[in-house]
Structures are given as C-alpha cells and as structure tokens.
C-alpha cells in the first residue's frame, strides 16, 4: 500500500478519498486553490498545498503545480477523483514519467476510451451491442446524412471527445440534419477543441443503466452490478439507484458479462463504468466508458458492501482485487440523491453562497457524503454539487420512503442559497418513479407539468 496519496480534486470527492486513505493508514495530501482555503478536505488532510488561484485552469487543472505539490510532499500516488484531470491521458502519463502512481487506468487506455469513436470501434469488436450509427468520425455532411438515414430518425450527433452531457444534438427529421450537424461540430470545437462528431440512433424513452467494473494487474476483471441513472436533466444525473428496477430476468447479468468482456478488450485496470442505454423493448446498447470513479459509486457500495475507493487504492498499489466475481452479492436497494446548490425555480441556475445552516440527515441506513458545514462559503467557481444523500433499505419501496424522510430532514440555508432538495422529493414521490416506469424524459415531463402550476409545499420533518 502507498505511504502517502495526493488528492488532485476538491469538494465531496476529495473528502471521500481522504477518508478511504485514512482507514488504510495512508497519509493524505490535499491540494487547493485560493478559493478553497477553508474547505473541509484542507483541514482533514495531513498536509495541504495551495496550488493556484480560483480558476480551475490554473489550479485543479494545472498539471505542473500538482506534480510539484506531489514532489514537495513526497506523495507516492495521485488520486484524481472525478472531473478535472481524472480522464486526461496526458496527466496519467506525466505522473508515470515522474514516478508517481496515477490511481486509474494506464494513460493509453484513458486515451482510447476517452475518444468516443475509438471506444465504439473497440467495443463493437469486443461484441458489445451498438446502436445503429457510425463507427468512425464523419468526414462530410453528406456522409453523416447517409449514416443518419441508414440508422433511422431520431438520431443523436455527439462530439468524439465529448462528455458530461455536453456537445450533442438530437435530430428528429431528415430536413433538420445538416443544420444540427454544423451546430454540433461548431459546439464540439468550442467545448473540446475537436470538431469530430459521430452519429447514432437516438432513443427518446430509454433508460440509462451502467455497470461498475474493476480490474487488477493479475488478470482479474470483475463487475459489481448495475446502477440505474435514468433520472437526468439535460444529460446531468440527479438521482441514481441500484439495483436497476424492473429489469427483465437475467438482463443485468448479461450487461455485466459484456462489460467485463469490454474491459478485458481495453486492457482495463482499476475502477471503470460501462454506460448503456436500455430501450423499452429490453434491448441494451453500449454508450461509453468512464475511466474513473463515478459520482454515484456509493449506491454500489451500499448494496455490495465493497469500498470502491479503497479497492482503487489497493489495485493501484499493485495488490490483487480483494474480491472475486462470486463474492459480489447485491443485497437490498440503495438510492442516491445529488443535492446541488441550484435553484429549480430559476432553471436550476447555480445558487451558492454562505451556508449558515447545514444539518445533514441522519438515522439508520443513511449516508451523507459532503464537504459542506455550517459557516462554509460555497464558491461559485466550481461544480454545484454540495452533498450526496444515500440510503439503503431491504426493498426499493422502503428505500424510497427512507429517502423521502431523509430529504425532509436535510436543512441547508443561507442568503441566496438554494438547493435541489425539494425537487428531489417531488421526484422520489412521482408516480412514474415510484412505479419505476420512468424514462430519461421524466425531469422534463415534471418541469412541463409544473409550468404554470403553483409550487407544491411538502411537509418538512422539522416544523
């Protein structure tokens, strides 16, 4: 095991990784921008290094500063968390060149899977089911139009190097294709500095189901079951659960098996996630691989009892996976809600600020991963995720009631601060979600239904 790990991230995930390190007896180095001087992980860590100003480009994305911080503190390894440098192949390579272990897959694997077109080719070759569409980047609008016509409308145009729900456009009819194609290319160029796009059939009423995989250096590759992330707003996940409800018999196992095949084909190591689209007819299709720990990893931890971050540290330090496929047993149901500092009444605009009151939920089978505390000034410079509220119960229905109870307990307030707690409660109580008959369109449907309606006031746990 490592002696000292530097965490190249901030917010709740930095604290999550720090806690795993502490349990394993590994010293923790935090890095932070001037904006995060008073952050929870800075006080939690054994050492902390200020690496730059608020702008992420000059701090959390500043490779030389992070490498220097690792060198000056003598860290053996860097955990990148999610976002920031976690899926930057160059960063993994620079770590290797400086004899620092990057806690994640090898740089080449990140590069191959990070490019959506090479990932699609590789996974099609490994036998993963693909949506009709292009396997290679498209060279002209005529070629793209032909692929779209063959795939059948609606189609989605996606940036080859895109991610995080950005750089994509949906086209419902042939006449609108050329225009959307040009727009998506321009957007991809602006967002990712790479205008290559690909086209595939779009499933409007699909579900988003993903498989957690894990591989070590000894040829062991396993999966830890599925997570359902169907509740999304503009391709941003709001709520995740495991197991995925109402799946046809044997489907989760089939998805797990093909994900393992895909991971082996890619030469994978560490924790990764295979994202799939599940069509209403029960067919599933490969979407992409995320080569890092996911925001929603706790739901898998809750149903399997396996600490994914500790396992990442073990595997990266050259140990074997501590579990075999037959040891992975999913028990009960877990749900995670992402509590963001956003105002649902103002189109989910970020609403950070000074958090004067911060009382996390408690009680049995409730877990809160957060960097928040009373008196914390949440900066506007970064992501709006403030807390992840996770519950476990023997059944999905019980977990749903437990989540509703826990959401009602969570109190966060301050001048100008708004959160998604109320909206998440509405989602948890929504009949389609309760019956697990929802699709990725559920949030838009809720917002459409709400337009013009008075705001629903749900009773709070605390008067």
């Amino acid at each position, binding site marked *: 095991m490592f002696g000292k790990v530097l965490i190249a991230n901030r917010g709740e995930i930095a*604290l999550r990784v720090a806690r795993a390190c502490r349990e394993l007896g590994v010293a923790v180095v935090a890095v932070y921008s*001037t904006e995060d*001087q*008073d952050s*929870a*992980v*800075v*006080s*939690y860590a054994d050492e902390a*290094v*200020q*690496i*730059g*100003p608020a*702008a*992420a480009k000059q*701090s959390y994305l500043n*490779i*030389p*500063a992070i*490498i*220097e*911080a690792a*060198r*000056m503190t003598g860290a053996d390894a860097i955990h990148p968390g999610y976002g920031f440098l976690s899926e930057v192949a160059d960063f993994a390579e*620079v770590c290797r060149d*400086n004899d620092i272990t990057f806690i994640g897959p090898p740089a080449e694997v990140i590069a191959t899977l990070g490019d959506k077109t090479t990932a699609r080719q590789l996974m099609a070759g490994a036998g993963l089911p693909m949506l009709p569409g292009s396997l290679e980047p498209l060279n002209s609008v005529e070629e793209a139009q032909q692929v779209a016509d063959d795939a059948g409308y609606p189609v989605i145009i996606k940036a080859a190097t895109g991610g995080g729900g950005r750089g994509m456009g949906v086209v419902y009819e042939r006449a609108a294709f050329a225009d959307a194609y040009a727009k998506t290319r321009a957007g991809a160029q*602006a967002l990712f500095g790479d205008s290559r796009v690909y086209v595939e059939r779009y499933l409007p009423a699909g579900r988003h189901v993903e498989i957690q995989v894990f591989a070590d250096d000894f040829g062991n590759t396993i999966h830890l079951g599925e997570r359902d992330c169907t509740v999304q707003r503009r391709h941003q996940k709001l709520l995740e659960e495991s197991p995925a409800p109402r799946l046809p018999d044997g489907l989760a196992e089939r998805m797990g098996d093909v994900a393992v095949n895909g991971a082996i084909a890619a030469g994978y190591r560490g924790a990764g996630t295979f994202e799939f689209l599940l069509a209403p007819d029960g067919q599933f299709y490969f979407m992409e691989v995320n080569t890092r720990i996911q925001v929603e990893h706790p739901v898998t931890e809750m149903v399997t009892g396996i600490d994914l971050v500790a396992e990442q540290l073990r595997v990266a330090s050259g140990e074997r996976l501590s579990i075999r496929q037959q040891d992975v047993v999913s028990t009960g149901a877990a749900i995670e809600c992402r509590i963001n500092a956003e105002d649902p009444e103002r189109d989910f605009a970020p609403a950070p600020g000074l958090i*004067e009151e*911060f*009382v*996390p939920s*408690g009680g049995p089978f409730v*877990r*809160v991963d*957060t*960097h*928040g*505390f*009373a*008196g*914390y*000034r949440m900066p*506007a410079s970064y992501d709006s995720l403030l807390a992840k509220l996770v519950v476990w119960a023997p059944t999905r229905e019980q977990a749903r009631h437990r989540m509703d109870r826990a959401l009602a307990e969570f109190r966060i307030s301050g001048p100008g601060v708004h959160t998604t707690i109320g909206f998440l409660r509405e989602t948890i109580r929504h009949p389609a979600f309760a019956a697990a008959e929802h699709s990725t369109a559920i949030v838009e449907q809720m917002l459409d239904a709400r337009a013009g309606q008075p705001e629903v006031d749900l009773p709070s746990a605390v008067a």
Partner: protein
Amino acid sequence: MTDDKEAAQLNELLDHAFRNTAQLAADLADHPKAVHVRAGDVSVEVAWQAGQAPQAAPTAPTEAPAAPPPTKQEPADDPGVRYLTAPAVGVLYLAPEPGAAPFVGVGDTVTAGQQVAIIEAMKLMIPFEAEHAGRITKVLKGNGEAVEFGEKVFSCDEIDAA
C-alpha cells in the same frame, strides 16, 4: 465551465471590485472582519467586528467535517509592510544560476515587474516578478526551498512608485 471570454470579463470585473474594496478598506479606520467580493452582478460585502463576534457554532454531526479550519491567512500585518508572493508551486531559486549573485537582497529597491527569483516547476523555469514596487526588508524563504502558490517570499516596505 464558463467560457474564456466570460471568464476574462468576470476577471476584469473582479479585479475592479477588488481594487475598489482595497481602497475602501484602506479608507476606513477599523480592519474589516470579512470582505466578500462577487463579480457576477458586482457586489462588495464588508463585515466589521461588532463587539464580540458571533461565533459560528458548527453543528457537527459525527459524519460531517468538523469546524471550519483556521484560515491560512495570517492576522493583519503592519500597515506599510507588503509581500511578494510566489506565482507558482515549485522550487524557489533566488539567483539566476548556481553561484551567481541573488536577483535581489535586503535593502534593494524593486520595481513592479522586476524579476526577483525563479520558480522551477516540472523543469520549467518560471520568472518570479514583483507584483508591486518596494524595498526588500526580509527574504522569508531559502534558496532551493519548495513554495506553494501565493506563499510569502519577500517582505518589503512600501515606497513611492518612482
């Protein structure tokens, strides 16, 4: 993430707001307890110590991180004393090359933009330039020492900008 243009505009706004705030703080008799500057729709918030400052009671459930950590910023310094702070994380070199005379020493006057040291980060030599003019009163870090971003390296007296 905000796009570059917007970020640049925000930066400029923030810069203005910051300078105005610094001026405001300088014009006031008491040291403010907290100053918050926002760039979005420009707002400046200043809080003073009112008798006994209300202690933000950290309601700390076992799971949540404990009280906010002590801030790294040191207490208010003597007026007139200013610092030149490291522009990057890395190793500090006070001289242009081994054995050479240091860029600056105690008693030297520096002008804004003058190189006062080098920071080495990943074999890249980054010039450390004075953000403002002053006369060096102390060198707070040794040659070859590791420094963080924003760490105080030189203290200096204010001088009238020549």
